[in-house]
């Protein structure tokens, strides 16, 4: 990037400078990134490799290091999308409207553990958890209640459900939208539909085996985007965030998401589609963790890796399909219940990382999230935190302002190189469903859990309030409690629906679903029919269980 003569002069002068430093002492700490990349004392033009036009270039131009759009935040700010849901659809609807009135520009539905696992509230297994960790969305009526008075044609909604319940929950949403008079071809939104979230991010409760999960995830991509039923939808959001939270590092985070993305693309290509038919709608959800520069380098490297994968491996032709678009969530696992107000500072810094890294959408965590679901006050502070960055700091004046920093460019190269190597390691195990069923990914997670615990307990990774300036665990904030009556409300909602629907007609449709599942055909068309007739998420998932079986993940301790 620099003239050879200039570089030679810098090299000579740098040696002289380092000579002078020999007597200077440095603090006795390891200067490494969170993923243990050793960091030099200083970066100079000597560390920046590559040609500007080849490896960095302009925003909106390949390889998109500086951003996917030519104007980035000068054209349009990132979407402020808080992940939110609790109690009942009605309560969540009130919270959504409150945040919308306060400037939120995208919605994201956090569902409860029953919706996540395809269990109806009438099933005693999970009854105490109705609405405790998200919004219950068990039937089409819930979707009407969730979005009441919300202009879902103008503001996009992210449905955070995974492959096992993706088809029924999204089919309920699409049917609701149609009944409200919206055309599916104009509908904007995202479904998480991420196989790794519900297998290694969390462990699945009575879900089906990974090969079936991979297939239904691809059914959804095929039906919405490739077959153009909901062409503007993002049918999958590879959610590195959820497993990063478990303790894997930035390199593994990108390795997991790209290996997973490749398995999905391969599946759809096997079905006869071309990558160009759908890759432009694939989306990503990454973490903004504690290492400020490593995270920024990660976003920049991710754009470059994706571009290379699409262009070289999948021979994507349309330049619009080469861009890596991503949502970011600040790191929940970096928050502490001790001194919860410090979480506001942590979140602000992490949000800034995401913005300096060119994210398309951002969730900032609430300060009380180490203890409970966000209270209204804490959620507003979280929203205002990103609004401070957007409206007051002027960081949006210019695009990718950290480009050209010797350190950031060097670190971007370093992260990229390490991710390629790690992806090779995963892909040697096989496709993503194999990496799950063989237990390989569980061992990676287990090792990460253990390593992170030791680092924190030894004080190598500092967490203020926990292992430095300790304070006893004593909750000083008010604890937000979810509704105690949610269970009764939801059971009642389902009973009313069951009394109203044509059960004989539905039984026939569910029988057809059984046969579709047996033949391993695309489940979406028949599930659109079933949910329209009032099938619940639990009823549909029970058919999956019946035909495909229940999977016990090979957990490692």
């Amino acid at each position, binding site marked *: 990037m620099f003239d050879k003569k200039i570089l030679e002069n810098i090299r000579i002068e740098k040696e002289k400078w380092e000579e002078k430093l020999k007597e200077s002492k440095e603090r006795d700490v390891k200067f490494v990134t969170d993923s243990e990349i050793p960091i030099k004392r200083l970066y100079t033009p000597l560390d920046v490799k590559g040609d500007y036009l080849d490896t960095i270039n302009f925003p909106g131009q390949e390889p998109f290091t500086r951003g996917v759009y030519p104007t980035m935040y000068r054209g349009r700010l990132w979407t402020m999308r808080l992940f939110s849901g609790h109690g009942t659809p009605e309560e969540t609807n009130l919270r959504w409207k409150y945040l919308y009135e306060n400037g939120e520009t995208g919605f994201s539905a956090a569902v409860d*553990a*029953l919706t*996540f*696992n395809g*269990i109806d509230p009438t099933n*005693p*297994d*999970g009854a*105490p*958890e109705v609405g*405790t*960790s998200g919004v219950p969305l068990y039937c089409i009526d819930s979707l009407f209640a969730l979005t009441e008075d919300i202009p879902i044609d103008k503001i996009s909604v992210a449905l955070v459900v995974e492959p096992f319940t993706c088809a029924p929950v999204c089919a309920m949403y699409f049917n609701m939208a149609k009944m409200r008079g919206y055309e599916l071809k104009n509908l904007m939104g995202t479904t998480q539909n991420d196989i790794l979230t*519900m297998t290694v991010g*969390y*462990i*699945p*409760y*009575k879900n089906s085996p990974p090969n079936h999960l991979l297939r239904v995830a691809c059914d959804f991509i095929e039906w919405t985007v490739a077959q153009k039923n909901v062409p503007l939808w993002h049918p999958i959001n590879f959610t590195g965030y959820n497993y990063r939270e*478990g*303790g894997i590092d930035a390199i593994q985070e990108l390795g997991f998401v790209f290996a997973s993305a490749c398995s999905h693309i391969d599946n759809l290509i096997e079905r006869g589609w071309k990558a160009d038919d759908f890759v432009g709608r694939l989306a990503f959800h990454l973490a903004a963790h504690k290492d400020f520069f490593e995270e920024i380098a990660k976003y920049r490297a991710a754009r470059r890796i994706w571009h290379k994968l699409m262009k070289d491996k999948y021979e994507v032709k349309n330049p619009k399909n080469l861009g890596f678009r991503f949502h970011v969530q600040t790191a929940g696992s970096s928050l*502490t*219940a*001790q001194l919860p107000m410090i979480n506001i500072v942590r979140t602000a810094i992490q949000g800034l990382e995401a913005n300096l890294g060119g994210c398309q959408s951002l969730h900032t965590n609430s300060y009380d999230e*180490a*203890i*409970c*679901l966000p209270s209204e006050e804490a959620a507003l502070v979280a929203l205002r935190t990103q609004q401070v960055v957007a409206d007051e700091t002027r960081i949006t004046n210019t695009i990718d302002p950290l480009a050209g920093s010797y350190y950031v460019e060097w670190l971007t190269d370093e992260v990229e190189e390490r991710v390629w190597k790690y992806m090779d390691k995963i892909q040697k195990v096989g496709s993503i469903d194999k990496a799950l069923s063989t237990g390989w990914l569980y061992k990676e997670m*287990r090792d990460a*859990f*253990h390593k992170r*615990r030791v680092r924190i*307990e030894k004080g190598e990774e500092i*967490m203020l*309030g*926990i292992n430095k300036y300790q304070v006893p*665990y*004593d*909750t000083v904030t008010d*604890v937000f*409690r*979810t509704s105690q009556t949610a269970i009764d409300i939801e059971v009642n909602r389902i009973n009313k629906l069951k009394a109203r629907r044509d059960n004989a007609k539905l039984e026939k449709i569910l029988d057809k679903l059984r046969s579709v599942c047996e033949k391993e055909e695309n489940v979406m068309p028949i599930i659109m029919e079933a949910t329209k007739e009032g099938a619940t998420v639990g009823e549909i998932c029970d058919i999956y269980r019946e035909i495909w079986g229940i999977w016990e993940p090979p*957990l490692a*301790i």
Partner: protein
Amino acid sequence: MSSRKIRVLMSKPGIDGHWRGGIVVSRAIRDAGMELIFGGFQNAKQIVEAAIQEDVDVLGLSIHSGAHFAYTKQVIDLLKEKGVFNDILILVGGVIPAQDFPKLKEMGVANIYGPGSMTNDIVEFIKTHLKK
């Protein structure tokens, strides 16, 4: 003192899949030389059956869903019904607000470990508080 290893059952009541806490603590317990039985997802009946069958000294319940009162009560009621409550040290860990500790202790939980707990504190507590 018998030379029998301390036996610990680690269970996840309910259906919530937040699993890191339970695994991290399980590993620490095993590393401390105790016998760890990882129950994974279990309902109250399965937990109590496993606790009796495995003759455990300690029962750990990992709960991150906010439903800690309901699940803990189900388990303790059944332990009492089966007459083994007085033999087993019950610990609860997870996203449990400090305000809820007194009520859980009243219910019969020996100790509660919220966010930011250190695993060596858990191991130490087990060693010094066994019921039998």
